[in-house]
Structures are given as structure tokens and as C-alpha cells.
């Protein structure tokens, strides 16, 4: 029998972790990427990677609490078994990365140093300066190079994944891809295809994402029948540096190391920031969130910064929106040691030293919680069955998705420093499942009739040729991309309104029709970036429409998806009985809303439009509870909620049901 192979699409943390683990299991891997894998977008991750550790354990932390923080921060929209499994693997993954030589920051005694990130009260985050993603990626890149030298891995860098090859039974048998240098299109037979292609940031024009993050690989799977879930949940990072070509991330670790967010109390105070006295500064996050202060979850920090500028008129500058992120109270040496990487970026791109002058920042599109729908196999203890071929498989047999391009771990909002963990975890957990899948396969893909592969190759070749042959004078793909980004940024980010979303659906459909009439300024057959971009642009539309339609239909507020028309608001009464009544009503409404909306959005592409259905979420381990960060009346709501939960538990236990779920710290 011919050797069975796995094709991995994307060489970021997820793809590299999967490649390395598969190679260890003795499986041959083809690794395909738009860029040399060492230049993947994972290098942009700055702050760190979360796990429970010996120190936090002694402060009462454990894996369950990390799991709890993750689902609570994500507003309970994620299936719980994969998240639980990830939290329990966390410490082991850090150990592994440590062994691979990642230059994590150290304590004086030589242990891993940790910092605090948003949405938790524990210092769980291991870090390597402020370039943790880069350092983790390099460690995996090095291991993959080692396997490449040993002949187990074959890299295809500068190759564009054009789509999966499906046989007559709808089973994935490989992929078609294009060499970005020679423009050759060929098919790659594979016994499993794993897509780890990252997020779709370019749909928003400018974001914190890299230029390769077009979402095209995920979209091509979507257009081949793969389901796409929770697309409307797009994380807008609270702190980014505005730029003409890109919105550069300013890591949450800046706040984790003590950075304070503020605006002058006097609107557009003309004085230099450092000369404004303490009493005339408004530290609005600390004021409104006394427990988490500057480290509230990202969706909340983003809305507050947006609000203070747009609605309260307190932006630092008149002509553009921004707030101060201030590190100037921290000793220079400490800043250099822990945050050197990101402060260097600010200095290089803004020409201002953030060690002496507060930075000016504003929110920017950053991460997609949604992605390709994937399955899992639940174990008897509520985690995952390690080695199950169901883990991370899409609804297309033999097609898998891992990393940011799957939807599995972060629900409605991702906690900082959890993405590096989910990327590496998903790469590691998919490998033993693939091993079993391959063992069970009767025939290697390479032995299937070549007509199957040739048929798919020809389809892509004719699509490509038709684009090149198109007559001139049509639409300009770069300008259409700009328009798409502007629409998406305006209506599908921090605040969402149904009238705007409805209108945007029309606009984006029109843009899609126009994009289909693009003509190319380069019709050459060598390193033609123009045609590659145009294809990626066309593939942005099915996902853009999925995001918009999902957002339009979801009439509620959950995590990053915020619709003011459906917000619950705070308690207003001061009289205790009335306040209690309000809290009861609040909880009633919360329960009714969950009954309706605590569901994953599942989109499918019909060929020209998006069809949406909803799927129940497995919340069997931690019952959903109100997310009450900073809400007025939170204590009263929590009291009512806890009484209800206790009553439910008693009732359940009386029925001889399962053990009560553990309720951990709330807001």
C-alpha cells in the first residue's frame, strides 16, 4: 500500500504543533503555507500563554478554574468538553514548550515568571518578553525543521490552498493548491487535510492581523460544504496603534504589567499628558470595574474605550479617537525586560517613547472566535477522548480544522493569552485522532483513481485562466477590498444595530457582484500577486455575509456581540424590595434569553447565499450564569441567581441526578 499522508494547510502555531506531533507518531506530513512558516501570523501574538501553575495552585487556582474563567469570559457559548480538556493540558503544554527551548522570562530562582491577563484574578500567563507568540512559533518551527531534515515533513511554502478535493461520496481526499511563484496548479492526494489557516481579519480591511489572514482557506472549505460557526463573534482588541496600512496590536500585557488606561477629565485637554495632575485624570476602567480594574475581559474594555470617546466625548484628541495607555509610572528597566518588544513597536511606528509619554491607543479588529464548525468526542469525565478521529473534524469527512480558524474554544469572547494555548492544544490533540483515522482507512488516497484529482485540478485551473483572460476596464480589486473593509468595520465591530446590518448585507452583496467583475492589472503567469489577491478577495464575501447575517439574526448581547437595543442594563431601584424585584426580573429575562440564544450559529453556503441554523451548546459541566462584570446591582443579581441555582441543585439531587456543578467566583 502507498504511504498515507496528512496535508496541513497553514504553518502557524496550530499547524506546526500538528505537524510535529504527527511526525513523532510516524506519519508523513505535507505542510503548506502562503508564507515561509516562520513568518506566520502567530509571530504577532505578544502577551503570553495561560496555564495553571504551582504558584497559582497554592492561591486556590486549579485547572477547573481556568476552564471556568474561559467559559465565563466566553459567555458560555462554547461546548465545554474541549475547553475543559484544554485547561487540563495547559500546564503540560507550557512544560513542553519550555523543554523545546522557548526563552520564557524567569524568576530570580530560574522558574518561569508569570503575569496576569484579563478575565482572571490569577497570574497564569507565562511569557517571553512581549514576543511570546514569536518565541513559541520559532520553537515549533525548529522542531518541524528537524523533522524536515529527517524526511518526515515536506514543506510547500508560498503555496495557496485552493480547496479540498471531495470524492463522489463527499469525502475529502486531498486538496488543490497553487504555487505562488510559478503559478502551477496541482493536486495533493491526502488521507486527511487539516486546515489551520488562522483568522479572516482582512475582511475588515485593516486589523491587527497579518496580510496572509484573508480567511480564504476557511472560506474555500465553507464553499465546499464545510459549516462555519459563530462567525459574528469577532473580537475587537481594546488597545491598538492606528496606522495607514495596519492597526498594530498593543498587547494586553501592557495592562498586565500595570499599565493604566485614562483620559483627561477636561475633554481634549491641550496639556502634555504627563503634566496633567492625577486629580484631573479619569481612570475610567479602574473606576467602573474596581475588582478587575484595567484587566476586564476584552469585549468590555473595548466597549468602555469606544464609549468614552464616541458617546462621552472624552477622546484625547479632537480629530481622532484615542485614549491614553500609560506605563510611565513603571521603572524603565522593568519595562524593557518585560515589554521591550511591544514598546519598541510603538516607538518605531509612532516615533514616541512610551516609557516617558503615555501611548495613544484605540480598539481594532483582532481575532475571530468563530470559524469552521468542528466536532469532538466527549469522554466519560467530560473532557475529550484522546485519539478519537472525531476531534476537530469538520462536517466533511477527513477534513479537519484547528487553531483560530476553528470555532471551538472561545465562545462569544476570547480571554487574553488563551489563543496561543488553544492553537497549540488543537494541533497536539488532532494528531492522535488522525493516527487512528489513518489506521482505519482501507486505502491510501494516493491509490485512488487519478481522474478524481485531475477533475478538481482542472476546475481550479479553469477558474484561474478565466480570471486572467477577463477583459480590462472592470472593477479594481484593491478598491473593492477597501470598501468591504469600511462597511464591515462600521457595522460589525463594537456596536451592532439591525438597521445598519440589514443595509450592510445589501451593500456587501452588491460589492460581491462587482468583485466578480474585477479585471486584473497583471495577467502574467509568474508570481502574479494580483490574481492571487483577487481570488482571496472573492472568497472574503461568503464569510463577510456569514458574519453580517449571523449578527443581524442574533438579537441579544453576548460577549463580543453587542446590540444596545437588546442590552439588559443595570438595576435602578434603591429601595431593597424593589431592587430585589428588579433582580428577579433581570434573572427571569436572562434565563429566557439563554433559552432562546445560548446556541451556536451554524452557517452553510448554498452557492450564492448563507443559510443559518442553530445548535445547542454542551453546558453540562458548568451551568451558565450571568456575566456581571461591573454591572450596577451585580451583587443583588448574583444573590438571586445563586438562590435559584441552589434550588435547582437540590431539586436535581433529589431526583438522583448528577453531582452539582461547581460555581466559581463570578464578576
Amino acid at each position, binding site marked *: 500500500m502507498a504511504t498515507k499522508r496528512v496535508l496541513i494547510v497553514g504553518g502557524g502555531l496550530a499547524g506546526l504543533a500538528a505537524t*510535529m506531533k504527527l511526525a*513523532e507518531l510516524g506519519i508523513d506530513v505535507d505542510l503548506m503555507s502562503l*508564507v*515561509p512558516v*516562520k*513568518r506566520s*501570523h502567530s*509571530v*504577532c501574538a505578544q502577551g503570553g500563554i495561560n496555564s495553571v501553575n504551582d504558584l497559582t495552585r497554592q492561591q486556590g487556582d486549579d485547572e477547573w478554574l481556568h476552564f471556568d474563567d474561559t467559559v465565563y469570559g466566553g459567555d458560555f457559548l462554547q461546548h465545554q468538553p474541549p475547553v475543559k480538556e484544554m485547561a487540563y493540558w495547559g500546564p*503540560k503544554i507550557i*512544560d*513542553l514548550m519550555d*523543554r*523545546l*527551548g522557548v*526563552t520564557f*522570562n*524567569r524568576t*530570580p530562582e530560574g522558574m*518561569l515568571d508569570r503575569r496576569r491577563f484579563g478575565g482572571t484574578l490569577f497570574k497564569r500567563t507565562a511569557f*517571553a*518578553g512581549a*514576543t511570546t507568540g*514569536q518565541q513559541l512559533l520559532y520553537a515549533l518551527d*525548529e*522542531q518541524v*525543521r*528537524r523533522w524536515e*531534515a529527517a524526511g518526515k515533513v515536506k514543506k510547500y511554502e508560498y503555496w495557496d490552498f485552493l480547496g479540498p478535493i471531495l470524492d463522489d461520496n463527499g469525502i475529502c481526499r486531498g486538496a488543490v493548491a497553487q504555487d505562488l511563484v510559478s503559478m502551477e496548479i496541482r493536486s495533493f492526494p491526502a488521507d486527511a487535510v487539516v486546515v489551520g489557516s488562522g483568522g479572516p481579519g482582512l475582511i475588515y*480591511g485593516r486589523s491587527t492581523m*497579518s*496580510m*496572509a489572514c484573508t480567511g480564504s482557506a476557511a472560506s474555500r472549505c465553507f464553499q465546499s460544504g464545510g459549516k462555519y460557526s459563530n462567525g459574528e463573534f469577532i473580537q475587537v482588541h481594546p488597545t*491598538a*496603534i492606528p*496606522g*495607514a*496600512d*495596519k*492597526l*498594530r*496590536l498593543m498587547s494586553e500585557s501592557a495592562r498586565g504589567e500595570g499599565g493604566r488606561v485614562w483620559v483627561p477629565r477636561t475633554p481634549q485637554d491641550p496639556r502634555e499628558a504627563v503634566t496633567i495632575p492625577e486629580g484631573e485624570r479619569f481612570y475610567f476602567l479602574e473606576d467602573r470595574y474596581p475588582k478587575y480594574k484595567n484587566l476586564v475581559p476584552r469585549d468590555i474594555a473595548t466597549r468602555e474605550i469606544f464609549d468614552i470617546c464616541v458617546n462621552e466625548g472624552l477622546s484625547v484628541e479632537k*480629530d*481622532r*479617537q484615542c485614549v491614553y495607555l500609560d506605563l510611565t509610572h513603571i521603572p524603565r528597566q522593568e519595562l524593557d525586560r518585560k515589554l521591550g*518588544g511591544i514598546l519598541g*513597536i510603538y516607538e*518605531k*511606528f509612532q*516615533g514616541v517613547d512610551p516609557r516617558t509619554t503615555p501611548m495613544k491607543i*484605540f480598539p*481594532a*479588529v483582532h481575532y475571530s472566535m468563530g470559524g469552521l464548525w468542528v466536532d469532538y468526542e466527549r469522554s466519560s469525565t467530560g473532557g475529550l477522548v484522546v485519539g478519537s478521529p472525531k476531534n476537530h473534524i469538520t462536517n466533511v469527512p477527513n477534513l479537519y480544522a484547528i487553531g483560530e480558524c476553528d470555532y471551538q474554544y472561545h465562545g462569544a469572547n476570547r480571554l487574553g493569552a488563551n489563543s496561543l494555548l488553544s492553537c497549540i492544544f488543537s494541533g*497536539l490533540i488532532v494528531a492522535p485522532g488522525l493516527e487512528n483515522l489513518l489506521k482505519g482507512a482501507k486505502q491510501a488516497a494516493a491509490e485512488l483513481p487519478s481522474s478524481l484529482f485531475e477533475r478538481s485540478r482542472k476546475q481550479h485551473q479553469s477558474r484561474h485562466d478565466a480570471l486572467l483572460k477577463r477583459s480590462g476596464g472592470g472593477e479594481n480589486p484593491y478598491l473593492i477590498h477597501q470598501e468591504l473593509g469600511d462597511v464591515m*468595520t462600521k457595522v460589525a465591530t*463594537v456596536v451592532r444595530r439591525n438597521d445598519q446590518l440589514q443595509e450592510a448585507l445589501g451593500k456587501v452583496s452588491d460589492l460581491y457582484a462587482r468583485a466578480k467583475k474585477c479585471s486584473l*492589472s497583471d495577467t502574467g503567469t509568474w*508570481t*502574479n500577486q*494580483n490574481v492571487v489577491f483577487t481570488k482571496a478577495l472573492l472568497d472574503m464575501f461568503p464569510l463577510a455575509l456569514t458574519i453580517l447575517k449571523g449578527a443581524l439574526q442574533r438579537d441579544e448581547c453576548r460577549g463580543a456581540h453587542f446590540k444596545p437595543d437588546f442590552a439588559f442594563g443595570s438595576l435602578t431601584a434603591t429601595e431593597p424590595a424593589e431592587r430585589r424585584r428588579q433582580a428577579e426580573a433581570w434573572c427571569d429575562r436572562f434565563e429566557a434569553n439563554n433559552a432562546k440564544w445560548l446556541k451556536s450559529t451554524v452557517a452553510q453556503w448554498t452557492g450564492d447565499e448563507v443559510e443559518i441554523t442553530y445548535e445547542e451548546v454542551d453546558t453540562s459541566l458548568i451551568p451558565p450564569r450571568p456575566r456581571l462584570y461591573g454591572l450596577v446591582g451585580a451583587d443583588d443579581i448574583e444573590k438571586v441567581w445563586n438562590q435559584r441555582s441552589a434550588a435547582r441543585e437540590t431539586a436535581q439531587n433529589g431526583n438522583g441526578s448528577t453531582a452539582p456543578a461547581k460555581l466559581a467566583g463570578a464578576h
Partner: protein
Amino acid sequence: MADSHHNPNASHSARSFEVRILRQDGPGQPSYWERHRVEYEPEMNVISVLQRIAAKAITADGKHVAPVAWDCNCLEEVCGACTMVINGQVRQSCSALVDRLLEDRPGEIELAPMAKFPVVRDLVVDRARLFRALTKVKAWVPVDGYYDVGPGPRVSPATQEQSYPLSECMSCGCCLDACPQYLKVEVERLEGESAADFEARANNEFDRSFVGAHAISQAMLFNSHPTGATSAGPRLDALMAEGGIQVCGNAQNCVAVCPKNIPLTTSIGRAGRATTIHQLKKWFGA
């Protein structure tokens, strides 16, 4: 959102500026200069200049041309992709700010591909040799495997502070482009040669040529790691083989152009001592 705003305090008032680009249609083709005119906008970098040129694809003389090809990804100087020669200096185009460039040379920006790597097209070069050098020096920690077997070795903060800067190397190739000893190696695929044969032949050529400062520095990074040190010997052997550290002419250009300020000459010095000792040990059978 953060992207829809302009800096009202833009210091530069020029309405437009000229961009001279050294283009080349493909490997083995002649190169030629082409002039483009770009409207000035505040806070531009060379990436946004190239984006404007790609969107317009019309030269300063009004001629329709194919968009200029270039490489980029992260746009925040951590991926290394967008390296090119800008106003005569090898650097990343994302962190090359137009205001600064025009201050140094009013009215004009000059872009050329890296000089020491074969041009693929326009500003895109093939840096496969650079990555090959990482394989040659075994730039990895040879762990037993990826199962959970507990934490790694303890590392003092002093060691970490020495290793971290070396580990920030993003394989951009600036150090190589500026190095007088690093000469261009261009291997062309022969008629009828398979991709695998071509790759093997190219790698063979690369292995005989100078590995360069980045790879020497990576060898030192892994030799100083407790587990990495178990392969210290083979790494030093690689540095003593053809194309090894002896080729270094001590021009020190590498350290001067490194965008991450990696102490490359310190690494080269360490490698020099380590290889000498390694050689002596070999002679005396120690």
C-alpha cells in the same frame, strides 16, 4: 475604529513624491528602473506606498504596468518578510516611515530587492538558502519527544536575558545582505530536472557557501541551552566545515544593520572560540 483617522499634525507638506523601483520580471531577466508618483498621506510607510502603487499600477509617465510584486506579512517588524533595500539600506519596508525617508532624501524614495538573494520578481527574493543554513547548524533543541515528561531545565534570568535577544532573530536576512563575505548563489532549475533533484542540488550549493551571521548566532543560542548543548559538537563541526565561520571577514556590517539589535558579532566571537577549542579537543582526542 482606529483606522479611520488622520493625523492633523503631519509635519510633511509635500503633495506627492517619486518612488523609483528596481524591477525584474523573473529570474535571469534584466532588471530596470521604473518611476511611480505617489500622493503623500500622513503616517505612510513603504508598505502603504507599495499598496497605493499596486492599486493604481500606472507609472509616473502614465504607462499601465503590472503591479510591483513584493513580500510582506505582519507589518510590525516581527515576521521578516518585507525586507528590501530602501534608499540604499537593507531593512524592513513596514518600519520604513515615509516622513523619515523624505527627511533624509526629499521628494524621492528608492526601492530595490535584496542584493544577495536571487530575485523571484521585482522586490521578491528567494531566501531558501537562509533557512537551509538553520538546518545545517541544527538550530533546534533535540528533545526526546512531545509527550508530557515534566518541565524543562531551570534557567537563570541571566541566561534567559542572553538567549532571548538571539531568539528574536526573524530570519529576515539583513545581516547577510550587508555582509561582504556573503555572495549571491543562484541555482537555476535545469530542463527536465525534478523538483526534488533541483532542491537537493541547490541545498548542496548552499551548504558549500557561507552560512552567515544569523546561523552562527543560532548555533550559539542552541549550544547555550542545557538540552541543546547535547548537539554542540555537530553544530561546531558544521561551523568548521566549508562555508563555515572561517569565511567571516569581521567587517561587522551584520550587527550594524540587524533590525533587532542582535549581538551578532558577540555570537561570532563566541563561535570562534568554541570552534577553536573544539578543534583542539579533536586533535588531542579529548
